[in-house]
């Protein structure tokens, strides 16, 4: 069931890449999708992590949130780059709790931290994430946990 859905999405990707819809290329597309799915199965990389169907419902809200964060923090970092104030940049390395229980949730959280400038996730341990922050107030912002709450396990589990 999941395999066929995955195949269908890959085939859609093929159609959008291809732009040629004659029977020959459609047939080759189906064969290619088949080969890809077969290899993915052999690699054992085909599971709820690589193909997160369960994301769908909460994903749009999360994407809007993360895009807003990216724009906001980008502007902040750009200001710091151009700022003459020596205290604009005072880097630090801090460890924050990692509330997500699933691997996918942790990775999304870590990537969200990295995507928003000013913070880069450096290391994931069992229950914490080590973050390099560009300044104290940026680290304080992360500490409020707004980002962590935006990615609860509910996003990744059905």
């Amino acid at each position, binding site marked *: 069931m999941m395999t066929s859905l995955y195949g269908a999405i890959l085939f859609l990707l093929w159609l959008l890449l*291809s732009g040629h819809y004659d029977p020959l290329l459609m047939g*080759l597309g189906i064969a290619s999708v088949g*080969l*890809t799915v077969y*290899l993915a199965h052999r*690699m054992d990389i085909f599971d709820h992590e*690589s193909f997160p169907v369960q994301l769908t419902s909460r994903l749009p809200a999360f994407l809007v949130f993360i895009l807003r964060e990216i724009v906001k923090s980008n502007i902040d970092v750009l200001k710091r780059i151009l700022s003459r104030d020596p205290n604009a940049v005072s880097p630090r390395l801090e460890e924050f709790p990692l509330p997500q229980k699933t691997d996918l949730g942790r990775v999304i959280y*870590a990537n969200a931290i990295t995507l928003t400038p000013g913070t880069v996730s450096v290391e994931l341990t069992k229950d914490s994430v080590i973050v390099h922050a560009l300044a104290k107030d940026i680290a304080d912002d992360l500490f409020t946990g707004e980002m962590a709450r935006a990615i609860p396990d509910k996003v990744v589990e059905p």
Partner: protein
Amino acid sequence: MDLLIDISLLTFLAVTAIGIIRITNLFAVIMLFAIFSFLSATLFMTMDAVDVALTEAAVGAGISTVLMLATLALNKDHNEKQPDKNRHWLPLAVVLTTGAVLVYGTLDLPDFGDPASAPQTHVAPHYIEKAIEETGVPNIVTAVLASYRGFDTLGEVVVIFTAGIAVLLLLGGRREDPLDDGAKDKRVPQNLVLRIVSKIVIPVIMLFALYVQFHGDYGPGGGFQAGVIMSAAIILYSLVFGLGAAERIIPKSVLMFLTSLGVLIFAGVGIASLFLGGNYLNYSVLASSQVAGQHIGILLVELGVGITVFAVMLTIFFAFAGRERS
């Protein structure tokens, strides 16, 4: 605009080359080589040689980088060496003389894009004017490569095939069975982020490689590029999940089979056209109409190229990466 891009890219190219000479950290040098390839590929692109650019990007920046890193891994000594303070005048003289001779040689070359030069007046006009009509393939490069000059391309594929065999003979010798670390592979690798991101990305890269394989008729791409991109996907898998895991996905025996299969498909198409009454590798006789025959022939031949390139690239990578450090 083109001029500005060309000048900037060439400047970057020269600066990168100087950087490669000056920097002593080999990791950084290899990464600069990748940049060098990207820049050359972009220059090819501005000169409208898109197929070449794609190959350069995939082979030069992708596979070569990985192979150079693998070679570096084989050497114990990772330390940066201080450059030798002695001046070596003889090598310098040799390099300068060779360079001067080469530059002198270019003086006799026709200007870039000169319509009166020999290559432009010989068979090229025929290819350019007749390719679509005769082969039904919009991408002239593919038509020339796979059909008009099919025999040359067969030779190239055999060269790649030979390279694969040679690497196997030199490096593929006995070593510890990679299956031994099977138990180790099952553990969660340290870098969770890379693992999950690779899981998502690898199937997309594989599908994209197959797309490049089968759309060489219409746009940049074809067997060479597709084979390289496909092997890059497997290489990414082995980088993240361990070499043993990758060798279990595509066992050596299968790789050797694929290496030969590609060449056999290519040569087989030639023989089939002989049997059907045409010349060797003249695909026109493969189907009822000339264009249809050409289409089938080119498709099969490109597939053969792709399979062999894929298998040989992976063979070489496995042979390099699998060596014990000596």
